[in-house]
């Protein structure tokens, strides 16, 4: 019995000694290239993340060139794939920049033909809950913008009224749009420059009212700002007549729908016309008194 226990202990010690010797041998003596290759491939298959780090150079030591080339090629492939992915994103971005650039060049080509002095500004914020009411532009009093300046925009070759400056801050301003409920102005149409009242509805179409029944009005007729308007310079296109309500007559006046020349949804930049109101109109409080 004691002998059996003794032999069992000996076997344990022998096995431990063998395993420890093998481990020390592997540790002390440089392993062959075959061992390194197998280890590199084995580890690479199971732990691919290991090879992407800074330790990869150390990891690829002592292995034959064909194996190291194989692993390096894969690393290179992954790196280049990531690069291609990034470049695709940049390419898409560059595409949008080219389009934007073409649009801005068109606008710049157009602006010298304007008879008004002013500055371009970029729309920086549109209110999603009421996009027909107002938006903000990226220029304010630092650029000489003042309240009640006229705001126009261009879409292709077409130029039209957008609204007026409502609030001015140092670096940005708020523009109230012609489609806003609070907006109203005088517009003229036809050869006789018949005047009518243009009002915003908080929707895409504007309302034309106070049109005399004898007025020469027809569908698709252009409507412009009037010379009698205090706020806007004359001759800016407001829109086209889209529907006439000749039956809804109120006190010998008829009404019509007006489609704005510039759709609020497509513009990205606007042109602010530097045009001060007459001196006596400057202070609204004085005006109200």
């Amino acid at each position: 019995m004691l002998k059996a226990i003794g032999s069992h202990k000996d076997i344990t010690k022998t096995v431990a000694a063998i395993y420890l010797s093998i481990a020390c041998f592997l540790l002390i003596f440089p392993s062959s290239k075959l061992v390194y290759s197998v280890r590199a491939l084995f580890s690479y298959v199971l732990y691919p993340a290991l090879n992407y780090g800074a330790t990869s150079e150390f990891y690829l030591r002592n292995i034959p060139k064909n194996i190291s080339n194989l692993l390096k090629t894969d690393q290179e492939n992954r790196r280049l794939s990531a690069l291609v992915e990034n470049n695709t994103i940049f390419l898409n971005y560059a595409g949008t920049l080219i389009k934007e650039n073409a649009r801005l060049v068109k606008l710049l080509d157009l602006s010298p033909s304007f008879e008004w002095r002013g500055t371009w500004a970029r729309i920086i914020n549109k209110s999603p809950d009421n996009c027909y009411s107002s938006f903000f532009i990226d220029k304010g009093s630092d650029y000489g913008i003042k309240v009640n300046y006229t705001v126009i925009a261009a879409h292709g070759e077409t130029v039209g009224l957008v609204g007026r400056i409502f609030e001015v801050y140092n670096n940005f301003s708020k523009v109230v749009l012609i489609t806003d409920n609070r907006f109203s102005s005088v517009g003229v149409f036809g050869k006789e420059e018949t005047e009518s009242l243009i009002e915003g509805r908080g929707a895409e179409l504007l309302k034309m009212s106070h049109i005399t029944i004898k007025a020469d009005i027809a569908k698709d007729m252009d409507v412009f700002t009037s010379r009698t308007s205090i706020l806007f310079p004359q001759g800016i296109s407001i829109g086209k007549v889209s529907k006439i309500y000749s039956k809804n007559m109120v006190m010998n006046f008829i009404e019509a729908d007006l489609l704005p020349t510039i759709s609020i949804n497509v513009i990205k930049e606007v042109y602010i016309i530097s045009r001060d109101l007459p001196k006596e109109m400057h202070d609204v409080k004085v005006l109200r008194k």
Partner: protein
Amino acid sequence: MKFIGNIFVFIIVSVAYWLFSNHFSFFHIAPNMLFTAAISLAILLKPVTALSFCFFWGLYMDMMGINAFGAYALIYTLMCYAVHISKKRFDFDMPIPQIVLVFILSVLVFLFHQMLSLIFTDVNPLRLKVLFVEPLVNSLLMPFVFAIFHYLKRKLKIL
């Protein structure tokens, strides 16, 4: 039958270790399934079988690592032998001694491996975050791993 069971356990634990370290690690910290399994088997099995498990799991870890080749095989074999010697004096069947044992051995294994890496490869593999957190995680995992192997050995008689 037992030999096949041993190979089955060896493969399952190796795969579990790979899964944990690759997919369930948080901030490069994952419970070391191999380590806790090696200590569990060192407690439960006959020394020769336990030594074989520990040596080959050590080799497996060396194969997967980038540091001194043979270091884990040496450390795990020594660790198994140390557990075999000390289990005559301490009762490692209870959870508290197991937790203390794993905690102490985790720290010692880290330091020993660090020493071997510095001596043989000039590579410093030790991360302080791992040194401070992994022994705790391993200690807490140990009673559960031990219970599984205990069940496999005593009830299913696989090991």
